[in-house]
């Protein structure tokens, strides 16, 4: 994991009175998640902060899952989006607090559903302190297509690290569930 990455030093620093931090936020809000393109990395809670250290904008990202292959792609897209607005920035990573699906914005949840992915329930059930490993808690997942709650878990592991596979017993369609984390 790259701890500290600077974008191209060839770009000149921007002075003036514009609010460069808000401008960086706006740029980041246009970066879609590479695997779930209907939501931005800001809405997913991957961007943990944007600040200014006197010389540069500092963007703090956090990985979703440790092994998520999109992490490097996201960093490259962040750098490209900032470069497009001629914002000189440093990208750094924060591991703590660990990313949680509770950070996903409410408006992004509706868009996930429209995209065919059931949005995550609360991550309380994956609190690492007190879960029986023997029986998974029964969670109520509504089908994103027909809305029925008569659904069944196929596998906790799906097309990406962050999704589980479900099927709807009412409309018979399979669907992804963004699993609580």
């Amino acid at each position: 994991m790259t701890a500290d990455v600077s974008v191209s030093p060839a770009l000149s620093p921007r002075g003036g009175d514009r609010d460069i931090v808000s401008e960086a936020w706006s740029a980041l809000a246009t970066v879609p998640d590479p695997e779930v393109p209907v939501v931005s990395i800001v809405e997913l809670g991957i961007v943990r902060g944007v600040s200014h250290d006197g010389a540069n904008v500092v963007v703090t990202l956090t990985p979703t899952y440790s092994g998520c292959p999109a992490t490097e792609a996201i960093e490259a897209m962040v750098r490209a989006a900032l470069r497009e607005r001629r914002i000189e920035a440093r990208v750094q990573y924060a591991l703590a607090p660990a990313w949680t699906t509770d950070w996903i914005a409410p408006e992004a949840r509706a868009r996930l559903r429209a995209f065919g992915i059931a949005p995550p329930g609360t991550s309380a059930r994956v609190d690492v302190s007190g879960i029986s490993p023997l029986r998974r808690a029964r969670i109520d997942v509504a089908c994103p297509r027909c809305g029925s709650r008569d659904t069944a878990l196929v596998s906790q592991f799906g097309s990406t690290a962050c999704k589980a596979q479900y099927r709807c017993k009412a409309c018979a369609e399979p669907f992804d569930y963004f699993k609580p984390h």
Partner: protein
Amino acid sequence: MATDSDIFDYLLRLGDSDLVLAQRLGEWVGKGPVLEEDIALANVGLDLLGQARLWLSYAGEVEARFRGRGRSEDELAFLRDGAAFRNVQLVEQPNGDYADTTARQFYFDHAHLLLLRALARSRDERIAAIAAKAAKEVQYHVERSTDWVIRLGDGTDESHARMQRAIDDLWPYTGELFAADELDAVLADAAIAPDPASLRDAWQAAIAAALDEATLTLPAIGWMHGAHGRDGKHGVHTEHLGHLLAEMQFLQRAYPGAQW
């Protein structure tokens, strides 16, 4: 007093067990018994690979503090020989049939989760942060492997017999998960890592409860592989690790520095 060299050695233990098991799980890709399991094994392997990268990257940073230069995660993964690997012997055991793969994962996942929960309270902030993150992922691993032990154990006569055989065969590799040595004692004193022996009761209780539900019998075998420090944590490995590394490291050995 724990030195940087102690922390480095310990980080290799954490990173290498994750890395080697990730490689084993990767061997299943394209060959899983059903599509969902193929995907699940790849996902669990990917989580472990990501965790291995976090541990080994940190190991390299710590190494730089006492050696002047620290190795990168890739150098540590691809350019060390078997005797320099510090993974437990359990994770290098071959995939075998699905019962073998499941039993190996079941034993490891439960120990892994207990270890990560304890490490999440480490006085070393970076270790605590990585462990807290990894524990959330491993919670799902535990659910899955436990579920399969129960389904196969409490399944057909054939699946029951095979699951019991795998549980028995791999049992003697579980001693190493909890065998404390001098390094463990130093790190426990410094509140950087738990004494592994302190995790054993909770592990055995979880294993026993799952095996009971699976209608399987907890092994009564007392002797363990790797006793008296001749274990993976000290670089003593079974014959399987060399074969695994030959495949995993081939590209970097044949084409040093190659990048995608």
